[in-house]
């Protein structure tokens, strides 16, 4: 057999050259196999089949054209192979990329027009970010009220409220209908000052009066008078509208708030400050507890320590596998899982951070242990030291700096994570963000987002400085007296203990919750372990019988023949009458659901946890006629009593959920791919502006350089999850928002890394190529690009790894992909399905990590 690696096999004699291309045309890769290139043939066949399947599944039929191109190329390829030539793979790779990216845009619903059409809906977010709620002045208020009745009736009763006297507000008409425009006049207000108009409905809910969609304001004249037009809003829900011949008293309120005195922090600000402390406390506690657990775990996961005998080697593999599984599930996903176990709150968030920390640090620590230099151990042992002495004098000094550096690195990540963990749980700053977004309080939201950026930047800066110092080694030890050293150490320990206790309290650690929630947690764990992969399809069947309430309100059709059916103890009845429902001739021993089918079309269960038929297929329920079964005016169809059950039809098949998981896994991968590509495409040109050596030392050059650096650093401090929220407001929730957010996050991240590697390029080759008389463009292509390509690719692969992980969780806040479905399933307590999503994520993260590690090896 000719191996694929053999270069240009000579043409096989005695075989006609038209046969392989023809075979390839009929079966892709067939011709290649015919000339002995089995691997090439198989690869072509596999690629075409997979791409065709994806195109059909995702319905991107236009992409069949490039697929046809690959098909034709495959035939040409085998023709060339027969003639002993080795065609290049440029064309099929280009077409393949076209198909993959085409599928990506289809699957992630990329719609660039939404960037424009959605811009206005993002405006409030952006505007709010420029003016967060920080301080406010205490105010002196003028508030005027005037009643108005809606709608007008004859005769009009006295309004339920009187207008205020000082300041005085009058309205042009005593009553109006929704949509009418009335004129109000005020006097006795603060002169020449702005005020707000509010509409208060009969139950006291205020809303701002709108004018062309904007919140209406008024400005008083020098005498404190004003006139304004108010359009009567629909201030009462349809169900609360007054009946015919009735009216309701609404109020129009005009208010002015005149600030005086010194500024006070807003309530928003004090809440944000509280949550900053909580955020930092969560991260601190999770890091400290994480370290405590990770150290012993790391010893169990260190190859050089555990490879000695079969038992420890077994432990090594088990520990490693568990660490890898835990690590490949993002912290935010753990937060959702822990919320099921211990409930929403800081404690669950802390546990999620802690678990991920143990797994991540366990792995990093174990690698540090594996990298230990055996020399010093040998040397210390040679002095006759005992085992523990060897550890203290030869092992710990070697691993300590690395451990410390990794721990700081993790602390950094934990702070970042704990700022956003609140997006899925009630913990830290993220919770404020999501809560205020839901309440449309954008300025408050902006305050929280800015707080997150601040916390992240500060932690980022300080820990990178600290890490530098740790890795450089401490500066020469100053001579300090032993007592002073003791005092300093005691103070440090005391401070640490204090912060620890304080964090413990802020994180609301309640270990009893772990026990109390254990049944729910265990049930989830059990369901996670048993994936809902295969199911037998079911069809819903039902039998029903009408029940007019009250009697005579509607015709009752006569009972129809034999077979499955419902019989009732009443032909018709009144609300509250006792009723016996009997289902007969149903499938025996079948779970059924007995329901009221209400006259308005909705249904209600007659009893919860009901019911099951006996051997004869009969089920009986005693109840009373439900109040909502009553026919109100205008309804003609009487309510019914229905028995519903599910019958399996046909053989087992892959479950709906498993197919959904597969589909969403592909969407998630494509999201990560698109985001990485988009991010890189924008980051590459921008990074040149942030490279000191490219921008030179001229004044405009430096201004541009610092501008871009600042932009990158500022943008990097916006957490990707926060970007998802904003992008979901921009282009609508869904995969496109996720792709956009990830790409926007990647641009500054990659831009920074790229610009640093541009600054790092060797100027020698640039000089040499310039000296040959090459022009600038040629110098760029021959001296700069070859140096940058491998570094850029390595960074892009690294970002790709991160993006895969991120894209599994951005669905929690409207970014599409598998995370969205996971959260939904957990919310519905369908843990068997949610578990499948988790396993899919683990497999996805593992396989992509493996692939990119392999790719990186080949690059460097």
């Amino acid at each position, binding site marked *: 057999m000719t191996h694929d690696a053999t270069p240009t096999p000579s043409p096989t004699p005695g075989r006609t050259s038209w046969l392989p291309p023809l075979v390839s045309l009929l079966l892709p890769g067939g011709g290649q196999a015919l000339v002995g290139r089995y691997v090439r043939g198989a690869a072509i066949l596999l690629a075409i089949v997979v791409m065709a399947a994806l195109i059909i599944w995702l319905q991107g039929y236009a992409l069949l054209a490039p697929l046809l191109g690959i098909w034709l190329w495959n035939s040409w390829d085998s023709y060339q192979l027969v003639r002993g030539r080795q065609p290049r793979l440029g064309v099929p790779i280009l077409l393949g990329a076209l198909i993959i990216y085409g599928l990506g845009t289809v699957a992630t619903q990329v719609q660039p027009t939404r960037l424009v059409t959605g811009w206005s809906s993002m405006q409030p977010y952006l505007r709010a970010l420029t003016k967060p709620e920080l301080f406010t002045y205490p105010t002196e208020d003028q508030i005027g009220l005037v009643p108005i009745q809606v709608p007008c009736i004859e005769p009009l009763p006295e309004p339920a409220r009187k207008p205020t006297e000082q300041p005085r507000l009058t309205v042009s008409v005593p009553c109006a209908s929704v949509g009418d425009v009335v004129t109000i006049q005020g006097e006795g207000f603060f002169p020449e000052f702005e005020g707000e108009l509010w509409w208060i409905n009969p139950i006291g809910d205020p809303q701002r009066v709108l004018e062309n969609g904007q919140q209406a304001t008024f400005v008083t004249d020098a005498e404190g008078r004003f006139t304004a037009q108010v359009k009567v809003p629909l201030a009462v829900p349809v169900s609360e509208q007054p009946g015919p011949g009735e009216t309701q008293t609404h109020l129009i309120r005009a208010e002015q708030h005149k600030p005086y005195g010194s500024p006070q922090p807003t309530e928003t600000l004090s809440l944000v400050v509280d949550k900053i402390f909580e955020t930092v406390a969560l991260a601190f506690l999770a890091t400290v507890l994480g370290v405590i657990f990770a150290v012993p775990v790391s010893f169990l996961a260190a190859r050089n320590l555990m490879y000695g005998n079969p038992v420890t080697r077994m432990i090594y593999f088990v520990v490693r596998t568990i660490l890898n599984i835990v690590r490949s599930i993002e912290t935010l996903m753990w937060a959702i899982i822990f919320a099921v176990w211990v409930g929403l709150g800081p404690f669950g968030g802390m546990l999620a951070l802690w678990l991920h920390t143990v797994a991540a640090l366990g792995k990093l620590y174990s690698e540090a242990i594996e990298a230990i230099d055996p020399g010093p151990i040998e040397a210390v042992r040679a002095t006759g030291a005992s085992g523990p002495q060897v550890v203290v004098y030869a092992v710990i000094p070697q691993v300590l700096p690395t451990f410390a550096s990794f721990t700081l690195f993790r602390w950094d990540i934990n702070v970042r994570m704990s700022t956003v963990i609140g997006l899925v749980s009630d913990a830290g700053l993220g919770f404020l963000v999501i809560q205020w977004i839901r309440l449309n309080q954008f300025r408050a939201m902006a305050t929280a987002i800015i707080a997150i950026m601040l916390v992240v930047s500060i932690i980022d800066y300080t820990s990178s400085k600290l890490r530098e110092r740790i890795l450089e080694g401490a500066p020469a030890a100053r001579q300090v007296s032993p007592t002073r050293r003791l005092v300093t150490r005691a103070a440090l320990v005391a401070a640490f203990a204090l912060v620890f206790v304080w964090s413990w309290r802020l994180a609301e650690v309640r270990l009893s919750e772990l026990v109390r929630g254990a049944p729910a947690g265990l049930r989830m764990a059990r369901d996670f372990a048993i994936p809902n992969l295969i199911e037998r399809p079911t069809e819903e069947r039902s039998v029903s019988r009408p029940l007019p309430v009250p009697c005579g309100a509607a015709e009752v059709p006569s009972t129809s023949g034999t077979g499955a059916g419902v019989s009732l103890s009443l032909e018709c009845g009144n609300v509250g009458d006792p009723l016996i429902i009997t289902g007969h001739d149903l499938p025996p021993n079948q779970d059924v659901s007995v329901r009221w089918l209400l006259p308005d079309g909705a249904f209600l269960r007659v009893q919860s946890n009901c019911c099951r038929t006996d051997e004869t297929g009969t089920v009986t329920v005693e109840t009373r006629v439900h109040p909502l079964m009553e026919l109100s005016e205008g309804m003609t169809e009487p309510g019914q009593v229905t028995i519903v059950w599910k019958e399996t039809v046909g053989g087992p098949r892959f479950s709906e959920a498993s197919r959904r998981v597969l589909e969403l896994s592909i969407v998630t991968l494509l999201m990560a791919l698109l985001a990485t590509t988009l991010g890189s495409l924008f980051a590459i040109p921008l990074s040149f502006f942030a490279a000191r050596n490219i921008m030179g*030392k001229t004044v405009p050059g430096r201004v541009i350089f610092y501008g871009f650096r600042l932009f990158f650093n500022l943008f990097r401090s916006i957490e990707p999850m926060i970007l998802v929220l904003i992008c979901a407001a921009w282009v609508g929730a869904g995969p496109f928002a996720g792709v956009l957010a990830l790409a926007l996050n990647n641009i500054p991240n990659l831009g920074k890394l790229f610009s640093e590697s541009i600054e790092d390029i060797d100027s020698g080759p640039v000089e040499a190529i310039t000296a040959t008389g090459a*022009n600038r*463009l040629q110098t760029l292509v021959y001296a700069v690009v070859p140096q940058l390509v491998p570094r850029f690719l390595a960074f892009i692969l690294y970002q790709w790894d991160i993006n895969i992980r991120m894209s599994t969780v951005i669905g929690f806040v409207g970014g599409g992909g598998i995370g969205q479905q996971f959260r939904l399933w957990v919310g519905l307590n369908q843990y068997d399905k949610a578990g499948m999503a988790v396993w899919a994520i683990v497999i996805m993260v593992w396989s992509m990590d493996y692939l990119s590690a392999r790719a990186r090896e080949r690059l460097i």
Partner: protein
Amino acid sequence: MLRIEHLTKVFPDGTVALKDVSFEVKDGEFLAIIGLSGSGKSTLLRCINRLIDPTEGRIVWDDKDITAASGRELREIRRNIGMIFQQFNLVKRSTVMTNVLSGRLGYAHPVWSLVHRFSPEDYELARAALERVGIADKADNRADQLSGGQQQRVGIARALMQEPKIMLADEPVASLDPVLAHSILQYLETLNREDGITVLCSLHFLDLVHRYATRVIGLKDGELVFEGLPSELTADRFKEVYGEEAEMVTVGGTMSA
């Protein structure tokens, strides 16, 4: 004929690298430039092909003012001046062939060359250049897989692609061991004798100067302190250039020459 007239270079940070340096190089000479590190040798060489712009003074080559040239004219001048470097300055991740071909960029099509397209004649020339420096078999290797001596030979082959009239060599052997140093200088000597290429080469070792150069200039703190034949470079003169502390060191392995 290359004429350096009153050349002065002051760097933006105030360092005076060259102070009013004037001398002439006749066609076909092998001029050695000696001096301590930081005496201005590299700056001088880089002023000649304008990798560095001089602050004052002129460089005239066959009645062309190099210092006044710019744009296409400057690139054509550079095309005729080959240069090799102490650190070889190869693009390490590119193949030897690509590195050598890049010496042809001044002649190549400005657009096609951007996608690595060169004419068959250029390929022919590149193979000939590689054969001339004795590493034709390494054409498809990546440059960083080669030893230091081989890398410098790639550097020479790249410069040869320019079909230069002048060759600038900035301490071409300072990073190489003595045996390799001789072999590299012998290639330069061959180019100088057989092809009539003028060579300007900065060197550190007196015995190499004696062995290869036809004329010597010495720089000290940016000033020209010696100009003459290698035989005129006595121990005293040498100390003038290198300072009182200096001892003459020879490169071992001269016997292999």
